[in-house]
C-alpha cells in the first residue's frame, strides 16, 4: 500500500534556510554534509500541513465513525426487578378460592353455619397458600335478602365466573343425611341435609359443618397436592414453608407431569388413519371431531388454543424390528405384546411430521387392522388403545360386525376411538383425575397452569438478567427491553389477579408474560457476538490498521519532537 509515508518520503533534503527563489550561496560546503541545514519555512509548513491533513481526517472523521459503527447497543433492563422475580421475592402465589354457599335458611343461621364450617375447614387445611373462603351466596329464592347480603361485603352471586365452587344446601326429609352430589358439568355441589342438622346459634360444632368441611377438603385435595408439588419444584424460596408431600403422592405427581405435554399457547392436533391395506380409504372425521372433540377443545380454550388436521395413510406397515401380531387360538384374537407397543408407531415410514402448525404437535393414530388380523388386541389386558407420553395416543379400531372392511368409516364407527382420544388428550393436557366435575378440574388446571407459567416466566427473566450481566459484549436491542417491561407488567397483574382469586384473568396475563419473556430471551440479534472475546478484536483491527497507523504516528512524533526542540 502506498501509505502516507509517500508524502514525506522525500523530505530528504537539507535545503537552505533562505527561500529557494533567492540565489543561495553554498558556502558552508564541508559542514553541510554532516549537519543538515534547516529546512525552508515553506517546505516545513507544507510538510506539517500534509501530516496534519491526515491526522484531521483520522481524528475528526475516522474516530467518530469507529465509535459509531462498533458501539454495542445495550438497552437498559430492570435487572434488580428481574432478579427479584426470579428469586420469588415479588410474588408469593396464593390461591384464595371462593366457595359460594346457598342456604335456604335465615341469614343469621346461615352466617353461623358458614362460620363454623370455615373454622372446621381451616383446621383441616395445612397448606396456607391454598385457601378456601366460604361466602354466603345470594340465592335466587331469597331475592328479598339479596340487597343486604351484597352490602355486607361477604355475599356473592353464585353464577360469578370467579367462584370456584357453589354449594347448594337442599333440605330433605328422606335418605341418609347429610349426603352430597357433585354435578359433573357445572361447578356445583348439592348437599342434602335434614333441617335439624343446621347448627343452632349457641352450639360450636355440628355434623353438617364438619361434613361440609371434609367434603370440600376432599374435592380440592388433588389440586393442593399438585400446587404443593409445583411450588416445591420451582422455587426454593417457598419450599421451606410448604409441607412435604408423601413420597407416594410425590412420585405419582412426578409420573403425571412426565406424561403431560410441555405447556404451549397453541397445540397442533393431528388425527391420522393408518391401515395396512387399501381400505378403509375414507373416514367421516370431520363430523366425529365436531361432535366428540370440539366440546372438549372449547372447554380447554381458556388455557390453550388448538389447531387440527387429519390424514389417511393406506398400506402402512409395521416396523420390521417389532414382533408381528400373533394369533391366540384360545381367545380367537390377534395379540400384540406390551413391550412391542413402543415400536408400534413406525416413525421411519409413517408420515407424522413433528411440526406442521405453530406449537407442538399431538398425534392421535387410529389403526384399522387388516381383515385377516382382526381383532387385534394387547395381550396383557385385552385393551386396544394406549397413550404415548408427551407425544399422543394410539387406538386400534377392530370392526367386528362388518363382513368386510368398509371403504369408509362413519362417524358412529369412530365414536369409541374419539372417546379414547378425548381421554388421552385430557391426560396429555394435564387435567387432574379428580374431582368428578369437569369444570372443577378445568379450573384446577387453570390455577396450576397460571402458577407454573408465572414461575417459568420469572425464571426466564432471571436467566435473561444473568445473560445481560455475564456477557457485556452482546448487543441488547430495544425490543428486548420492551418485552421485559411487558413481561413484568403481565406478571404483576397475573399475581394480583391470583391474590384476588380471579384465576381466568390471572392465567391470561401469565400466558402473555410467558410469551413476552420467551420473545425477549430468544431475541436473534443478541446471540451474534456471544462467542467474540475481546482478544479477537486485536486480530480484526491490527492487520489493516497497524500498517496504516505506524507511519502516521511516527511522522506525528517526529514533527512534535522538532517543534519542541525549536520551541
Amino acid at each position, binding site marked *: 500500500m*502506498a501509505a502516507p509515508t509517500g508524502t514525506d518520503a522525500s*523530505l530528504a533534503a537539507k535545503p537552505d534556510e533562505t527561500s529557494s527563489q533567492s540565489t543561495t550561496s553554498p558556502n558552508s560546503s564541508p559542514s553541510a554534509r554532516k549537519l543538515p541545514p534547516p529546512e525552508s519555512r515553506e517546505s516545513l509548513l507544507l510538510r506539517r500541513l500534509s501530516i496534519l491533513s491526515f491526522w*484531521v481526517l483520522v481524528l475528526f472523521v475516522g474516530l467518530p465513525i469507529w465509535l459509531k*459503527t462498533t458501539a454495542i447497543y445495550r438497552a437498559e433492563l430492570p435487572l434488580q426487578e428481574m432478579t427479584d422475580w426470579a428469586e420469588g421475592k415479588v410474588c408469593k402465589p396464593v390461591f384464595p378460592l371462593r366457595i359460594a354457599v346457598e342456604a335456604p335458611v335465615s341469614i343469621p343461621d346461615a352466617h353461623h353455619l358458614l362460620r363454623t364450617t370455615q373454622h372446621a375447614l381451616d383446621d383441616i387445611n395445612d397448606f396456607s397458600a391454598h385457601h378456601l373462603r366460604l361466602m354466603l351466596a345470594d340465592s335466587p329464592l331469597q331475592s328479598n335478602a339479596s340487597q343486604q347480603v351484597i352490602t355486607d361485603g361477604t355475599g356473592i352471586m353464585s353464577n360469578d365466573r370467579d367462584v370456584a365452587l357453589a354449594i347448594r344446601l337442599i333440605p330433605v326429609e328422606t335418605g341418609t343425611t347429610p349426603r352430597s352430589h357433585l354435578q359433573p358439568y357445572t361447578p356445583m355441589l348439592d348437599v342434602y341435609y335434614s333441617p335439624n342438622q343446621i347448627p343452632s346459634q349457641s352450639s360450636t360444632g355440628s355434623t353438617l359443618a364438619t361434613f361440609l368441611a371434609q367434603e370440600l377438603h376432599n374435592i380440592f385435595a388433588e389440586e393442593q397436592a399438585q400446587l404443593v408439588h409445583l411450588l416445591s419444584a420451582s422455587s426454593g424460596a417457598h419450599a421451606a414453608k410448604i409441607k412435604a408431600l408423601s413420597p407416594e403422592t410425590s412420585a405419582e405427581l412426578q409420573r403425571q407431569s412426565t406424561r403431560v405435554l410441555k405447556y404451549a399457547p397453541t397445540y397442533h392436533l393431528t388425527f391420522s388413519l393408518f391401515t395396512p391395506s387399501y381400505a378403509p380409504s375414507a373416514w367421516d372425521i370431520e363430523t366425529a371431531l365436531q361432535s366428540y372433540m370440539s366440546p372438549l377443545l372449547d372447554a380447554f380454550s381458556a388455557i390453550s388454543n388448538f389447531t387440527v388436521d387429519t390424514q389417511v395413510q393406506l398400506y402402512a406397515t409395521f416396523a420390521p424390528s417389532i414382533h408381528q401380531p400373533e394369533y391366540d387360538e384360545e381367545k380367537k384374537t390377534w395379540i400384540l405384546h406390551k413391550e412391542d407397543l413402543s415400536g408400534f408407531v413406525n416413525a421411519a415410514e409413517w408420515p407424522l411430521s413433528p411440526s406442521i402448525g405453530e406449537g407442538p404437535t399431538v398425534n392421535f393414530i387410529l389403526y384399522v387392522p387388516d381383515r385377516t388380523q382382526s381383532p387385534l388386541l394387547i395381550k396383557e389386558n385385552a385393551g386396544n388403545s394406549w397413550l404415548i407420553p408427551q407425544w399422543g395416543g394410539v387406538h386400534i379400531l377392530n370392526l367386528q360386525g362388518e363382513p368386510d372392511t368398509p371403504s369408509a368409516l362413519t362417524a358412529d364407527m369412530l365414536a369409541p376411538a374419539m372417546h379414547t382420544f378425548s381421554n388421552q388428550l385430557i391426560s396429555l393436557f394435564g387435567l387432574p383425575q379428580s374431582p368428578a366435575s369437569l369444570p372443577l378440574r378445568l379450573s384446577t388446571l387453570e390455577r396450576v397452569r397460571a402458577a407454573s407459567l408465572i414461575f417459568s416466566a420469572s425464571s426466564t427473566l432471571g436467566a435473561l438478567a444473568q445473560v445481560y450481566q455475564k456477557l457485556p459484549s452482546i448487543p441488547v436491542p430495544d425490543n428486548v427491553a420492551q418485552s421485559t417491561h411487558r413481561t413484568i407488567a403481565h406478571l404483576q397483574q397475573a399475581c394480583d389477579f391470583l391474590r384476588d382469586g380471579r384465576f381466568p384473568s390471572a392465567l391470561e396475563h401469565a400466558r402473555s408474560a410467558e410469551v413476552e419473556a420467551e420473545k425477549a430471551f430468544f431475541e436473534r440479534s443478541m446471540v*451474534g457476538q456471544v462467542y467474540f472475546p475481546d482478544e479477537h478484536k486485536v486480530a480484526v483491527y491490527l492487520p489493516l*490498521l497497524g500498517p496504516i497507523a505506524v507511519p502516521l504516528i511516527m511522522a506525528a512524533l517526529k514533527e512534535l519532537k522538532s517543534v519542541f526542540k525549536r520551541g
Partner: protein
Amino acid sequence: MAIDTRQAIDTRQAMDTRHKVLLFGAAAAVRLLLFTVFPALPDLLAGRVDVSTPVTSFKRLQEGVFLYTHNVSPYDGGVYHQAPLLLPLFSLLPNPAHAPLATNVFYTAVDLASAHALAQVADSGFASVTPWFASPRRHLRWSSAAIAAGFLFNPFTIATCLARSTSALTNLAILTAMAKASQGASFTFILAAAFAAYMAMHPILLFPPLTILLYHARTRNSKTTPSVSPFVISHTLGFCTAIAALLTGSAFLTRSWDFLSATYGVRLLLPDLTPNVGLWWYFFIEMFDSFRDFFLAVFWLHAASYMPGLTIRLHKQPLFVACTLTGVFAIFTPYPSIADAALYLSLVPMFRHLFPLMRYTFLASASILYTSFLGPAFYHLWIYAGSGNANFFYAITLVWSLGLSVILGDSLYAALRDELDVERPELRDKEVRRI
C-alpha cells in the same frame, strides 16, 4: 527570421495534425475491425469480471435500458447500479443485440474524444511547467500524439471499449475535465468534473487539485493571479450547482430519488461482492458482520485520505496530484476495473521528465504484465475449471494492486525529488537519503 519560425511552427502543426488524423483513424479502424471480425468478443469481454464491474457493466446497462423503455423503474430489479442519465442516451441507440454498429461507433468515438482530451492536456505542458514550478528536466517530454497513442493502443483501453463498459464514459469526463482545466475554461471544466463525479462518485476527489490546475492555467493565460478566495468559492458553488442539477434531472427522469441508494449507495456500501481486480471484495466476504460498517468506513476513508495530503504537499503540480489520484482510484475504490488502470497508465507518460528518477520501473511493469496474463487464467481455474479457489484470483489482484502501487509510490518519490532539485540545484543527480 520571424516568418521562418512561424513557418516552421506551421509545418510542425500541420505534421502534428496529420499524425493525429492518422493515429485516430488507425485507432478507430482497430476498434471497428475487432468489433466486426470477432462479433462474439464484445459479449465475452462484457462478462469478464476484470473488465466489467457491477457498477459499469454493459449487460446491466442493457437491463436498465430495457426496464426504462418499458416504463418500469430501472432500479427495481436490483441489477442496474449506474447513473440514470445514461438511460435516455442509450435508449436512443438501436438495440445492440440486433444492430450493434451504432453502439460500437459510439464507444469508438468516446475513446477518440478521450484521446483528444488527453492530447490537449499533454499539449498544455502543465505536467512539467506551472507558473510556480518548472522541472529542471522539462525538455524531456513526449509529443501529445505519442501520449494519445499510448492511450488509444493500450490493450486495457481497447478491452474496455470492446466490453462497452461505461467506465469509458467516466474516463472521458475525467480527461475532459483535466483538459478544460489545463486550458483555463471554467465553465466546461465544472461541467465535465460534475459529470465525472455524477457517474462514478469518487472523481469528486479530483475537484480540488483540478481547481488548482485551473487557477494555474488562468494565471498563465492572463499573466495575472486572480484572487484566491472568490475563485475557489465561485468554482465550488458552480460545481455544487452542476451536481445538484444533474441529480435533480435524474430524479425528474426516474420520478423518484431511489437511484441515490441504487447507485451511490451500492458504491458506498458494497452489497454486491462480485470479484473484481480491487482489494475490497475478498476482504468483505471474510468480514465479521458486526465490523462491516466500520471497515467500509475505514476503506473509504483510506481511499479519500490521499487527496488532501497530496494536494497540500504538491500544490505546485496539481496535474500530477490528479494523475496520482486516478492511480489511487484504480487500486483502492470498491469496484475498480482495468479501465481505471488504463486511465492512470495513460496519464503517467505525460510525466516523462520523472522517468529518470524512478527506480522500480522494471518491477512495476513486470508485475503488471504478469498479472495481466495470469489474472484471467487464475479466474478461469477458479470459476470454470474448478481446480483453483478464490485465493488464486485474489492473490493475482494483490499483485496487480502491488504493481500499480509501486508505480504510484515511485512516481511520487520522483516528483518530490524533482521538486527538491529545483530547491537545491547543487544536489542534482546526487544520492539523497531521508533523514
